[in-house]
């Protein structure tokens, strides 16, 4: 490994490592300074961590969709953020109707299930037709073309939903039973955060076991290994690609409902930033790698929640929370530069780097 390094080292590498090193120094210095200043207590940090965990598990769910699609088609489904948005945005109207008729308060669990089902169905449908109409005719085209299509589809979907449902922020009805907090191991945790984390974990386990344990899951894995060979083995590649989009859409729709439970509002642009962050999470975990994407999502959520206070506050930066997204994007760029195979992924190194 060391020999290979010596051969291939170039001035640009040196510049890049300098950039990386100085950022690292900044982060360490900032953290030490923040901790030394003692502005935040342990309580604060725990709150940050739990919030980060909840947010991260949402990112993780979205990221599985990215990573699976990348696995089978080797393309970034740029419109995945819109798949994520479409579900809860549509389900908002159902939830609102149930709220008006008091059904939401009298039967909260049935209502929640209905919201989940509607959101997942819509997201799934959007993902399915997106693949069928926009991506399928372009398979085998030069790489830039599907990517541009995906960007176009992303904006088309965003503004289609804006046109259909209006451009207002819609306040999601509040589930009364998830208000307030529980004491768990002596820590006070907001109820909806617990719900989000638990639901996300359950869904991720379900998804992972589907991929690992069922025949269809096996077929999807085979397609992402080698399309030609798997089609020779009698696997219907097109159907598997569709299935992948369907599963990704379901996960995204569910993630969207969790997002709406957490931030209590939806609007047409809500998918864009979480979409990019979920992509970051997928890259962090090594794109194409499902457990990697899940861990990457949680990691990103934590960094984003803890990072501004920990790294930037100590450097005397005003209002560090405004730079939360900048931290996520910096992470994205850094991972793409220094470790494009991700924290857990090795497979792609051969294919792509």
């Amino acid at each position: 490994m060391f020999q290979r390094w010596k051969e291939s080292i170039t001035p640009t590498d040196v510049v890049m490592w300098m950039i990386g090193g100085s950022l690292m120094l900044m982060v360490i210095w900032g953290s030490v300074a923040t901790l030394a200043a003692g502005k935040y207590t342990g309580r604060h940090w725990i709150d940050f961590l739990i919030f980060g965990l909840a947010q991260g598990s949402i990112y993780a769910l979205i990221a599985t969709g990215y990573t699976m699609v990348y696995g089978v088609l080797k393309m970034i489904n740029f419109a995945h953020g819109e798949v994520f948005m479409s579900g809860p945005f549509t389900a908002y109207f159902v939830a609102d109707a149930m709220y008006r008729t008091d059904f939401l308060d009298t039967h909260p669990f049935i209502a929640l299930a209905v919201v989940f089902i509607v959101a997942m169905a819509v997201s799934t449908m959007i993902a399915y037709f997106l693949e069928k109409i926009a991506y399928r005719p372009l398979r085998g085209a030069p790489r830039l073309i599907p990517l541009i299509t995906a960007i176009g589809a992303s904006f088309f979907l965003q503004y289609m939903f804006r046109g259909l449902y209006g451009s207002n922020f819609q306040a999601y009805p509040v589930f009364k039973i998830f208000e307030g907090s529980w004491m768990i191991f002596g820590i006070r945790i907001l109820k909806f955060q617990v719900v989000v984390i638990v639901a996300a974990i359950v869904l991720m386990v379900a998804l992972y076991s589907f991929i690992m344990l069922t025949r269809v899951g096996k077929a999807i894995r085979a397609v992402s290994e080698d399309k030609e060979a798997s089609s020779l083995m009698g696997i219907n590649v097109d159907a598997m690609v569709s299935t992948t989009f369907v599963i990704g859409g379901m996960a995204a729709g569910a993630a969207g409902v969790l997002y709406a439970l957490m931030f209590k509002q939806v609007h047409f642009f809500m998918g864009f930033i979480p979409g990019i962050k979920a992509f970051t999470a997928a890259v962090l975990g090594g794109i194409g790698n499902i457990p990697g994407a899940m861990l990457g999502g949680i990691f990103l959520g934590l960094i984003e929640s803890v990072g501004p206070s920990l790294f930037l506050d100590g450097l005397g930066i005003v209002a560090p929370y405004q730079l939360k997204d900048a931290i996520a994007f910096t992470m994205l760029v850094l991972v793409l530069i220094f470790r494009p195979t991700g924290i857990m992924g090795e497979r792609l190194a051969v294919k792509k780097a």
Partner: protein
Amino acid sequence: MTRARSIWQHGVKTGIIGGVAVLIIALVGMVQSFNKRDIIFEVVAMGHTLLVITAVLMGYVAAKRTPRDDGLIQYVNTIVCSLITSGFLALLVVVGRSVNLRAVLVNASPVLYKALTLGFDGAAGILIILLFGVICGSVAALLYYLPPVVRRVTIISLSAMIGAGVLQELIRPVLLSWGPMAVIADYFYTSNGLTIAGAVTIVVFIAAGMTVWTLRGESIKSHYSHLSGGSQRGIKIGSFVALAFVLIVLPHVLGLFLSEVLTIVGLYVLLGLGLNIVVGYAGMLDLGYVAFFAIGSYVTAVLTSPELGFYSLTFWQALPFAVVLGILSGVLLGIPVLKMRGDYLAIATLGFGEIIRILVISDFLRPWLGGAQGIKAIPKASVFGFALAQPQYIYYLILAGCILVVFISLRLKDSRMGRAWMAMREDEDVAQAMGINLVSTKLLAFATGAGFSALSGAIFASKLGSVYPHSFSVFISINIICLIIVGGMGSIPGVIVGAAALVGLPELLREFADFRLLVYGAALVAMMLLRPEGLWPEVRHKIELHEDENGSGQPEDLSAAEPASQPQGG
């Protein structure tokens, strides 16, 4: 797939697609807001035209997709398709009248139903919709059965008429502004839309012109190619001089509002040509391109605005700094992404663009960059003590910039570097094997693009007199990418056509503003599916794309998929 099914499935399938398309058009509010403008005064409104065009197009596609062997089967399929398409709208009206859809779909209002049924109530309205479906289907079938030449003439003359109606706000004031032409304006236009006589005149005139051209065009072309080299050159120089004259006189003919539109288009041409080098020539998809535009603007603002009080240079003193800093930042942001390709590059640059925007908007850099409130009081550029304040004069500044940038792009395209870029676009590994230094080639592309963008940003700052971080969102990047793609990647006239179509048109059609990104998105997808080389393709890129279609083919079996990209063309 049985024979019986395969006859009908094209009509039904296309009809469903068309139905969903018209439903979306109706429900996102396009029909309502476009209907405010008439194509022909009080006869044809723009929203209806859009629906009819969609229905006819779908019918035509259905006819084309149907296997050719039976005589009347195409006709029946077209009608089936159009009936299904209009059936979706009829269904919407039926449902919408009994259920209040408006609680969910903001545009499903009685106004929409009234527009769709042409004001008829009850069953008559539904019948009207279906009747229009049948008419659209028949028109589509007629177009299909017409000989190709006649079809082309019909389509082009009708679209010219529609174009003249849509662009009324561009053409009418220009005609009115000049005494004798006002008579012509009154003949063709009313206060909203064409007159009937005007519309007929346009159709007849264009059709006649087209017919003459089809009959005699070849001989005119051969006449031109048989001319001696000298006179061919004379004609070229003559048309060049005429073009230059038009460009110089343009803002004075067009008046204030249209000159403003022109300046905006010009800024986008500058941006587009810059990104064209990165995306079109070198094949690197940069989604953070707006960052350099922002850098150019902000450098100019910081250096010239007395509000912040650091420096108060003039525009011309600040311009070199803006461009040089833009180029430097292009190199700086280029270094980290040198090893990335395709999608990773796109996402990384998107990240850069967002980071810069977030930094500018934050309170952290507020003392230096003005935060969310931006920087105001940027002085106008002035030439020999004459301030370029009105759009008519700023136009010349932008025109000068565009000419410079077009010249550089043209020269670069055929240079050694340009060929290196294109080689890299086609295959990075092979290019490297051929001895192209990827590092310097890529960085130079980023630097040149960034320089153009910063130039555009500097002009933008002085034009507006203020800069706000909100002007530099990712949409600008998407906008620019879109105009390059629609125009044709790597093609300089393509960028200009793209900018005029995608930036100029929406500025002229204010109703359109809300649907801008919707249409952009649809245009990107449609272009990629149907015509990836763009409206005005660059020759080499076109060959490259089609080679790929015919040559390597698709390894995986796509039996179930429709060959959607094939029949179009015409």
